[in-house]
């Protein structure tokens, strides 16, 4: 009997020590996970912090005091920048360890080690495009800046100090679910985080759908449907300078001899990636103080992308948000200045078709000569499976991202600005901005910034405002790089880098304000050709609000930042309605649309019918563009549809499916209304509400629904200033009033300071964010001046 019982015991203990798969879902080892002493219960935080915690480190010379306020925002008081960054690393690790780890792994192509075969394709993409080499290149760049490396090393030491104090029972719950453990942090991982931001913002593989669409409809139609600039253009830099004439047209070399690219592109971060920022001078505000506002729109996640903090050293006192895994404050303010960022979505990635001489030998043609590609073998470890080996050729242009192994029909190499070696250290820019006192410091700080290109906005207590389209942009022939290029000609290479002095910028313009919202950077007269994926509406809406009010206040700025007014709807709807014949039953709905203020508020059903209508109208109008499975194509922008609607008899409105008749805009608008209306009336009255139809979901980094907040009832869309889509939105709302005696911030982000789903601080800002609240923030020069201090402190002490 004993033997049976012992065998049973061993079987039970082994079973409880291993993860089990139930119904396709892997359940962690139950013994490890469920016991209340070392299992997940350790991550169930009470939220009642102890009075203080002491940690000792031989890395420190002076003591660091960290005081937390009611929202769990840390205020770091350190005697040097290095020690402030040390504390920042410690806090990031303490609060966001898993987030840092998973982000660094994703960019390094090492997700499958943790998550198994499910993420193999993501790892293959990361390895093929050679993110690890891009990390190494950036590491080499940083090494040429010992002062910055010292700060980065201090940050890394702070992370590792926390890791040393972390027993397995206190590992973040995600590690326990996965049966994994954290790794030592390195500078390379910090660089991986910076590269992850670049990949999110400017790893633009639009060449693919652009080439497919060009192949599908031909150059003439392409130029007609996809012009580089809209008629109603309002760029970031509105100051037209005298430039020599430049021709903005298609590059005939770039679309010859291609077929559809049957690709497997990574998920497109999409049109939801974007941001708003603006700054106004004192003359336009009621209290005569400059005001700066910024809200970066990113894919929202839990834990949040941002970690808020305030840092104090003898050199600076700065408040803002940081990215876990990265030293410094990315967006914020100090007692002299405030700064913010929006993405400058200029295309800095080009694709090249490789002409192989002998692919097995890795030889290809370049300017008629044979050239040898380097074969790289990437070994990707997979949890519970044998490792996968990926063979990739590296060419003159860069890695062959897509080849036959990825089911593409053609071998396409990529050249991406963010992956190339640079002589600057971009960390210097953020560090410089944190310490800036005036416009001069801001300009000096920006000199080191190259990727991802940003519209960096600035305002100071001295009543200076500025905006710079800052980044490293390739010099191209007009039209070059919109489509996959012939990789056998070096003449298709970039012809240099746009000199920094020629980057678009505005300083203290006459109109009294500067702004950006991912729109075109310049008027077409700019001497350097560029293309990209720009937004047309948010910037113009912000411009309208700023232009029409000369007594702006923080409260008005909050209202602008959360405005659901949709300029796209305001411009398109009246034109569509004009083309419509209305039946009696539809009249009340059309009247509502006619009298609507174009606000995409959650309770309104009108945005739902509007979006359905525009979508159907584009579908019917642009039937020239084929719809083929697994081939990514472009759809023209709504502003182009509107421009075409000016000529109702344009042949574009003639439907290909009805060769016997010739349709005009009127028939298309009518037919699209009929379809949209039918879909709309199929919804229940509640389902028609915009907040329900386009509800927002903020997913956990691993996509665990129980750790996510889904189906949130929100207003706005990608074209409203309050740019909330189903997955993206304002990831940080910040408004800073720069008074002469005090600088005050009004801030919020949709998440919480803790990355632990078992903490009350995991998503505690989210409901306030949804209801439009802001938290007031002031700079506290000493620990005793912290407003709403909860008297919870961490002391990092020299050993």
């Amino acid at each position, binding site marked *: *009997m*004993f033997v049976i*019982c*012992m065998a*049973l*015991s061993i079987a*039970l*203990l082994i079973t*409880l020590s291993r993860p089990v798969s139930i119904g396709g*879902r892997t*359940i962690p080892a*139950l*013994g*490890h996970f*469920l*016991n*209340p*002493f*070392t*299992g*997940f*219960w*350790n*991550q*169930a*935080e*009470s*939220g*009642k912090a102890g009075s203080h915690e002491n940690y000792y480190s031989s890395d420190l010379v002076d003591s660091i005091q960290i005081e937390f306020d009611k929202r769990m925002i840390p205020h770091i008081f350190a005697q040097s920048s290095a020690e402030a960054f040390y504390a920042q690393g410690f806090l990031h690790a303490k609060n966001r360890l898993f987030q840092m780890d998973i982000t660094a792994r994703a960019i390094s192509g090492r997700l499958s080690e943790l998550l198994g075969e499910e993420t193999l394709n993501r790892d293959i993409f990361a390895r093929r495009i050679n993110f690890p080499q891009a990390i190494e290149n950036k590491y080499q760049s940083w090494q040429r800046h010992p002062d910055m490396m010292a700060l980065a090393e201090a940050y890394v030491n702070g992370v590792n100090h926390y890791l040393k104090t972390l027993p397995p029972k206190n590992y973040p*719950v995600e590690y326990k*679910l996965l049966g994994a453990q954290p790794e030592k942090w390195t500078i390379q991982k910090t660089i991986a985080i910076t590269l992850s931001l670049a990949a999110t913002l400017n790893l633009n593989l639009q060449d693919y759908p652009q080439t497919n669409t060009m192949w599908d409809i031909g150059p003439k139609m392409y130029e007609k449907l996809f012009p580089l600039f809209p008629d109603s253009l309002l760029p970031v830099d509105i100051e037209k300078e005298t430039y020599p004439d430049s021709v903005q047209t298609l590059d005939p070399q770039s679309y010859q001899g291609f077929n559809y690219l049957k690709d497997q592109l990574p998920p497109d971060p999409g049109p939801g990636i974007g941001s708003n920022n603006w700054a106004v001078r004192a003359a336009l505000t009621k209290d005569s103080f400059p005001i700066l506002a910024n809200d970066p729109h990113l894919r929202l996640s839990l834990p949040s992308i941002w970690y808020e903090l305030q840092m104090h050293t003898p050199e600076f006192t700065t408040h803002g948000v940081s990215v876990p895994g990265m030293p410094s404050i990315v967006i914020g303010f100090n007692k002299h200045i405030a700064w913010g960022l929006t993405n400058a979505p200029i295309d800095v990635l080009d694709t090249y078709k490789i002409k192989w001489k002998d692919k097995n030998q890795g030889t290809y043609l370049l300017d008629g000569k044979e050239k040898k590609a380097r074969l790289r073998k990437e070994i990707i470890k997979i949890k519970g499976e044998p490792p996968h080996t990926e063979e990739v050729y590296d060419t003159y242009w860069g890695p062959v991202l897509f080849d036959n192994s990825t089911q593409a029909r053609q071998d396409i190499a990529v050249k991406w600005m963010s992956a190339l070696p640079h002589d600057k250290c971009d960390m210097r820019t953020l560090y410089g901005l944190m310490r800036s006192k005036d416009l001069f410091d801001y300009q000096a700080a920006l000199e080191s910034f190259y990727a991802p290109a940003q519209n960096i906005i600035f305002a100071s207590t001295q009543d200076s405002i500025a905006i710079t389209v800052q980044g490293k942009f390739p010099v191209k022939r007009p039209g070059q790089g919109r489509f996959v290029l012939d990789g056998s000609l070096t003449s298709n290479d970039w012809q240099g880098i746009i000199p920094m002095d020629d980057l678009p910028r505005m300083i203290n313009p006459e109109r009294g304000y500067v702004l950006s919202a991912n729109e075109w950077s310049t008027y077409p007269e700019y001497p350097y050709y560029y293309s990209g994926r720009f937004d047309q509406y948010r910037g113009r809406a912000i411009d309208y609000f700023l232009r029409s009010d000369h007594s702006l206040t923080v409260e008005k700025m909050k209202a602008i930042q959360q405005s659901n007014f949709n300029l796209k709807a305001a411009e398109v709807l009246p034109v569509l309605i004009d083309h419509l014949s209305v039946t009696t039953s539809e009249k009340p709905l059309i009247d509502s649309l006619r009298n609507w203020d174009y606000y995409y508020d959650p309770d309104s059903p009108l945005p739902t019918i509007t979006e359905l209508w525009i979508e159907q109208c584009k579908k019917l109008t642009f039937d020239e563009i084929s719809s083929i499975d697994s081939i990514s194509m472009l759809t023209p922008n709504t502003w182009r549809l509107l421009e075409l609607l000016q000529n109702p008899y344009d042949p574009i409105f003639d439907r290909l499916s009805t060769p016997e008749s010739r349709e005009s805009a009127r028939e298309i608008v009518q037919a699209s209304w009929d379809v949209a209306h039918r879909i709309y009336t199929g919804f229940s009255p509640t389902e028609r509400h915009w907040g329900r139809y386009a509800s927002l979901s903020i997913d956990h980094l691993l996509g*665990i*629904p*129980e*750790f996510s907040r889904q189906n949130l009832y929100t207003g706005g869309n990608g074209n409203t200033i309050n740019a909330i889509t189903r997955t993206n939105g304002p990831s940080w709302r910040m408004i800073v009033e720069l008074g002469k005696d005090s600088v005050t911030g009004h801030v919020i982000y949709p998440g919480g300071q803790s990355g632990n*789903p*078992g*903490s*009350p601080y*995991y998503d505690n800002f989210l409901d306030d964010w949804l209801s439009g609240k802001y938290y007031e923030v002031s700079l506290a020069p000493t620990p005793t001046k912290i407003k709403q201090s909860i008297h919870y402190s961490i002391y990092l002490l020299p050993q």
Partner: protein
Amino acid sequence: MNNLLKLVLLICGSWLFAFNVDWRFSYLLPFILILFVPHKKLLVDLTLGFISIFLVWLTAALIIDGGNNSILSTRLAKIFGLANGPTLVVFSGILGGFIGGLGAVTGHFLHNSLQKTNDND
């Protein structure tokens, strides 16, 4: 040894050590105690092993869950297909009880088989 005393020893022992040792100690402690001081009846030992560890795990989980307002247990209960956080508390307790009970039963049988060997000698 008095059963009540054994229960107290099991509860106190597992509580004191549980925070610093592996969870399998919850199996080992009843196993060792019952191996050396078993009851004649298997059911009594089983009950002692089960109840003691059940109570320890349940109480610890309850205290933590209460302090956390069931934030984490509610989230994780859904992953395990359970109705709510308190169910996960009970589930944790039962799992502990099961481990403790099995440890006690194994100790009981080992004691008996060792005694039989001694008797045969």
